């Protein structure tokens, strides 16, 4: 998805599904608010499940849905870029914590890649799946390009990025409580690397400070992983 070559204006079918997606999302956000912001009321998962059912039932081809969906994917690239705003606002707090930030990021990111590759090896998964799993900590747009480069499957990398993000968000409150971390900066860095895009979105929802640490961690980790991983595959 490129902003330099915009997707075509959607036709009736594309517009209908684009509108339906936004409407269902708006409803899901209201429902989550009614449930007191419950983590299990993730709008992304519920709306996607409903839409998948709807598309399957109405026998709509993926390419027809994407005529509208491509515009939302463009907005995903825009909102990823928009993380620069909270990073700028909190630049002094971030600079003051540069050392723990980098230490946590380097250790966590390499541990995540090594663990994913090692367990894929133990379970005897083939090379293509193993390479795809290695992109696990990068956010969707990064993961797809990276998987392509190191012999993985871009589509699977995209799904892994999203599911890993959601699993991270669901497990996070319990895991943070387990090690007694209440510092939102620490939570932000961990969410940004291990939960990538979805983790960052959740961190932003909780506080802008957590969000800026998550966004910066996601960005730095994306650049480093993107540069280093191809050397090992």
């Amino acid at each position, binding site marked *: 998805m490129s902003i*330099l070559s915009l997707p075509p204006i959607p036709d009736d079918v594309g517009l209908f599904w684009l509108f339906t997606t936004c409407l269902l*999302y708006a409803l899901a*956000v209201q429902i989550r608010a009614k449930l007191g912001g419950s983590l299990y009321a993730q709008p*992304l998962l519920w*709306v996607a499940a409903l839409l*998948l059912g709807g598309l399957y039932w109405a026998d709509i081809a*993926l390419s027809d*849905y994407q005529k509208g969906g*491509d515009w939302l*994917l463009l*907005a995903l*690239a*825009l*909102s990823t*870029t928009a*993380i*620069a*705003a909270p*990073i700028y*606002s*909190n*630049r*002094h*707090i971030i600079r003051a914590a540069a050392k*723990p930030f980098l230490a946590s*990021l380097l*250790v966590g990111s390499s541990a995540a890649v090594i*663990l994913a590759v090692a*367990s*894929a090896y133990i379970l005897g998964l083939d090379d293509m*799946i193993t390479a795809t*799993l290695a992109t*696990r900590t990068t956010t*969707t747009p*990064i993961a797809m*390009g*990276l998987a392509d480069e190191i012999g993985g499957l871009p*589509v*699977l990398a*995209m*799904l892994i990025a*999203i599911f890993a993000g959601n*699993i991270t968000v669901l*497990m*996070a409150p319990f*895991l*943070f409580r387990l*090690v007694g*971390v209440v*510092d939102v900066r*620490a*939570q932000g860095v961990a969410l940004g690397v*291990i939960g990538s895009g*979805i983790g*960052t*979105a959740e961190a932003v*929802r909780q506080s*802008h400070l957590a969000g800026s640490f998550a966004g910066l961690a996601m960005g730095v980790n*994306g650049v480093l992983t*993107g540069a280093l991983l191809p050397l090992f595959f």
Partner: protein
Amino acid sequence: MSAKLFTNLGGLFIIAAALAAGEIIKSLAALPTPAPVLGILILVGVQFILPDFLRQGLHRVADFLLRHMALFFIPALMVLLEQGALLKEYGLAILVIIICGTAITLPLMAYLFMRLAPSQSETPHKESKL
């Protein structure tokens, strides 16, 4: 009210321009770095020279985009329509690997940061609302 609308549009334009600049640099320099990451770096730099009223517009738009990021991920999940076979074969193994990896690395990172960072109360706490 309309002044606010114009600065918001200006903010959206600046974000789009930063992303476009990221894409142009990526293709010219043949970098493996994804365009949005380059866009983030450019947009952080731009904010140092942006007049206040435009930066406020930029931050209002960014706040909206970030708050509703989940919406923009929905079309990406729709590829599941055509990837059922792949997930049936590898889904469970991948799920187990992700859950175990998360259970170890997420607390490890947060704990490491907490041990190395000066506690938050010692740093002047002035979190800016976007």
